[in-house]
């Protein structure tokens, strides 16, 4: 899958996540198969624009990241719209008896992100680039754990979560063979 290599070189990546545009902002929902990605798209308000229910395409922009529609379909069995929007937030999905949005540490967010990024290469230079991209994404986009009960009220939680960061995040490079 050479697409992911090309994207990695340009600071973008493919993420195992559903994404949809609501009121001009893209919301991402990531998790393993069965976590609820397609369910989140089915529960979305009727005016949302589906980008994908399976694999999201993300690229950096001047203010953060944008999500783009992709032809990759999951259980929904239909391609996303060919458009894009700035990413408002990424939610890692877990199912539960109630809707709850919780913060994640930066390290946990990067760990979960790396688990869900589609990348098929062992090139250390590209892996370094991908890790840098993941850290950049985590520092610029709100990331939360979303425990949800599968009914439409979960989208109220999605659109109203507290997007304030707990602390400023600073990214540092490891000195090159110091």
């Amino acid at each position, binding site marked *: 899958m050479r697409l992911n290599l090309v994207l990695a070189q340009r600071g973008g990546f493919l993420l195992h996540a559903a994404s949809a545009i609501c009121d001009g902002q893209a919301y991402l929902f990531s998790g393993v198969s069965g976590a609820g990605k397609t369910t989140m798209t089915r529960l979305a308000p009727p005016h949302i624009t589906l980008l994908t229910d399976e694999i999201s395409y993300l690229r950096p922009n001047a203010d953060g990241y944008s999500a783009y529609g992709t032809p990759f379909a999951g259980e929904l069995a239909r391609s996303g719209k060919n458009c894009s929007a700035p990413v408002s937030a990424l939610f890692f999905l877990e199912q539960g008896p109630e809707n709850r949005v919780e913060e994640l540490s*930066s*390290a946990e967010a*990067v*760990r979960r992100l790396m688990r869900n990024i589609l990348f098929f290469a062992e*090139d250390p230079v590209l892996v370094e680039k991908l*890790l840098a991209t993941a*850290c950049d994404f985590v*520092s610029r986009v709100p990331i939360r754990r979303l425990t949800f009960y599968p009914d439409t009220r979960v989208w109220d939680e999605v659109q109203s979560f507290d997007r304030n960061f707990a602390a400023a995040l600073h*990214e540092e490079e490891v000195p090159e063979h110091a």
Partner: protein
Amino acid sequence: MPENCTYIARSSSIAARALAGEMMVMNSADSTFFTLNEVATAIFQAADGHTPLREIVRDHICEQFDVDPDQAQADAEQFVAELSGHGILLVSDHPLSLETPR
């Protein structure tokens, strides 16, 4: 050359990044991912291939974290063994040249 020295160096097949005070390390060969605490990060960053581990522990761990030298050395050796097993660190009884990326 000092006797019975252990030298450690970062593998060239890993990617590392610091974020929000934590060091994240990933092995490009098998995608294993680690988050290092402060002490582990200090050892990792000092792993230049030519500084003996006991000097790293003395200069970067004992002084900075106010810990017992013998315990710190034992912990460091355990940590190094673990990361070495995952291909993150190279370990040798003689100085290592840092690997250049392939």
